[in-house]
């Protein structure tokens, strides 16, 4: 991408399409965007997943020349987009079960191979459908290197069923099953959970990336890049959930950005198991700035303030910054 335009305010590509040449503008800014996830669906106000899915699927549609089939796990995205007899989807779309989306996508891709079409295949699910119940099928799809782009919209809990903990729920977060009382005095326990992007990398698949709705140009670029590659690809998108996180719907983008800038959600990409780039943080913000805006962490700030717990979360962010070299300019993603 040309680097003559600087986006001083945010150091991201979130503003200024009008400053760019038409060819450089985002997919969403273009008249040709497909609105693959059309308006009129029933997502909550400020839903990060709806935003992420709209950008991701439209970018995938453009990259595939609109020749794309989507498979969807059970979850918020499925429920809010297809209340019978309505559907928001402007592309062929199938929902089978909660835990089998990657396998269904494998089947769709196999059918394209056998039919000799060039139709591409996208699979998508939330963090529950990806990191927990759908994990076996996902790992199988990775291991076989099936020609599927799998996108996980990570809002860090089972939001569709009423905010229960998943293996993507961060430590200390309050969920309906990690209420900060009794066994969980500080919310979700530390030392549990998993990073599916890193596990995906361990499968040595051609492309793994994390992305965020705070940086939609980066998200679009990663989807576009993933679509230029064949084989198993995985993009893990951080999507704040105002309802589940107890946050102001107007803060969705802000929270996603603070997650990145604190180091809690590292944005990076990897090819064949090797990290090839990261999105640099210009100035690290304290995790408190991120936590304070969410009721799921409110118990950390009540009297007495849980200084030690907050320090533990800060240590996680600091470790991410070291591990993914997030303060280093070089290797910035996209």
């Amino acid at each position, binding site marked *: 991408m040309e680097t003559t335009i600087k986006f001083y305010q945010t150091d991201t590509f979130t503003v200024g399409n009008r400053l760019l040449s038409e060819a450089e503008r985002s997919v969403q800014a273009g008249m040709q965007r497909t609105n693959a996830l059309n308006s009129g669906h029933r997502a909550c106000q400020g839903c990060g997943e709806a935003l992420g899915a709209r950008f991701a699927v439209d970018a995938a549609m453009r990259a595939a020349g*609109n*020749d*794309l*089939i989507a*498979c*969807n796990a059970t979850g918020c995205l*499925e*429920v809010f987009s*297809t*209340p*019978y*007899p309505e*559907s928001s*989807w*402007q*592309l*062929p*779309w*199938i*929902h*089978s*079960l909660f*835990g*089998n989306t990657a*396998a*269904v*996508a*494998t*089947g*769709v*891709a*196999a*059918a*394209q*191979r*056998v*039919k*000799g079409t060039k*139709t591409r295949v996208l699979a998508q699910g939330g963090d529950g459908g990806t990191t927990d119940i759908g994990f*076996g*099928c996902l*790992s*199988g799809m990775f*291991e*076989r290197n099936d020609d599927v782009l799998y996108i996980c919209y990570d809002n860090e809990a089972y939001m569709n069923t009423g905010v229960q903990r998943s293996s993507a729920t961060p430590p200390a977060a309050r969920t309906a099953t990690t209420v900060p009382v009794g066994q969980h005095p500080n919310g979700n326990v530390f030392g549990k959970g998993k990073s599916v992007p890193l596990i995906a990398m361990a499968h040595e698949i051609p492309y793994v990336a994390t992305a965020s709705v705070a940086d939609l140009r980066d998200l679009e670029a990663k989807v576009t890049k993933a679509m230029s590659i064949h084989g198993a690809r995985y993009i893990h998108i951080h999507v704040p959930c105002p309802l589940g996180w107890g946050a102001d719907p107007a803060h969705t983008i802000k929270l996603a950005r603070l997650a990145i800038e604190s180091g809690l959600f590292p944005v990076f990409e990897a090819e064949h198991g090797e990290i090839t780039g990261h999105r640099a943080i210009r100035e690290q913000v304290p995790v408190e700035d991120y936590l304070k805006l969410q009721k799921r962490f409110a118990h950390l700030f009540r009297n007495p303030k849980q200084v030690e717990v907050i320090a533990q979360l800060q240590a996680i962010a600091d470790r991410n910054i070291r591990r993914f070299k997030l303060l280093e300019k070089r290797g910035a993603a996209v």
Partner: protein
Amino acid sequence: MLKQIEGSQAIAEAIGLCRPEVICAYPITPQTHIVEGLGQMVDRGEISPCEFINVESEFAALSVAIGASAAGARSYTATASQGLLFMAEAVYNASGLGLPIVMTIGNRAIGAPINIWNDHQDSLSMRDSGWIQLYAETNQEAADLHIQAFRLAEELSVPVMVCVDGFILTHAYERVDIPAQEQVDAYLPPFEPRQLLDPIHPVTIGAMVGPEAFMEVRYLAHYKQMQALGLIPELAEAFQEQFGRDSGGLIKPYRSEDADTIVVALGSVNGTIKDVVDELREAGMSIGSLAICTYRPFPHKAVRNALEHAKRIVVVEKSLALGIGGIVATDVQMAVAGLHKPVHTVVAGLGGRPITRDSLRKLFHRADAGHLERLEFLDLKHDVVHEEIARMEAGRRSGPIAENILHSVGTVASQIR
């Protein structure tokens, strides 16, 4: 072409002739030889174009078939026992989505205790899932039923299970007439899906359906099953015209037209039953048998017609609905409801216990004399059971039942201390 061939290989060859486009393979005894055979046929280019996918579980196997079928590919998989249970959620999903997948079940018991041998508990556990269930009596029929199954599935847009007794059929070498490709092509037209994931005509498949329409969707799934009752005999007849063989259909009565006692069963045990019927007929007993080939949809009318003149009905079944008794017998009872005939349930052959001619002969003599109980267990070791019951009654912590019984029976395994 006549071949002396293993059942699994015959089934694999029949499936190959049906030109499957996506085959999902996950190993579980006793269906392994079928997918192994298919894999080799794909590798040799004998089935082409075809994607043979080694998946990581049965749940994935059927899920891959779901995706492939929804995208317009003729899809096949096979499983048994625990594998069928592990994919249960996808079993219901495939029929709910109306996807004409064909799946072989190498019938096997369900654990615990783990057991790899034949009975019908696995497929019968899925009897209400919306899949058509066909039961093969011989390996010839097993091969033939698969050819019929693809046509049936695709005409109705309903998935079909072809149930084949594990080991007894899957691993038995028999003479099987494997049809020519042209014959199968003439019988089975290419797959034209009713609904398709197609970027030119995008559709949403698998939307959420609430109380306002769910009942209607389910009713229509039932309606399709009822349609199958009409279509199955038609397809069996068309099969006979094409291949010159009587295979499949709803039911197969044997010497039962004037029989006082009619024995009803699913699958390969009908072979043994017919041998014993012949023997007892020679000895002057009024007995016949009825093989149920199509178990779902259940052919109530056909079964009723076949049984209405009998004085007593003996259902020999390789399954047990714990807490009530027979599974097949319950359906047979419903078929003959109001006719006031005794229907005896004989649970037999669980976990692969041989159902011998000798045992059946004794059973049928007792039936003929009117001495059968409502529910019986063929060749149950009563002494072993009573010993264990006594142990359980003597103390709450009486130990693991399966291990105690192995101890009593004195198998080699139990001697290892």
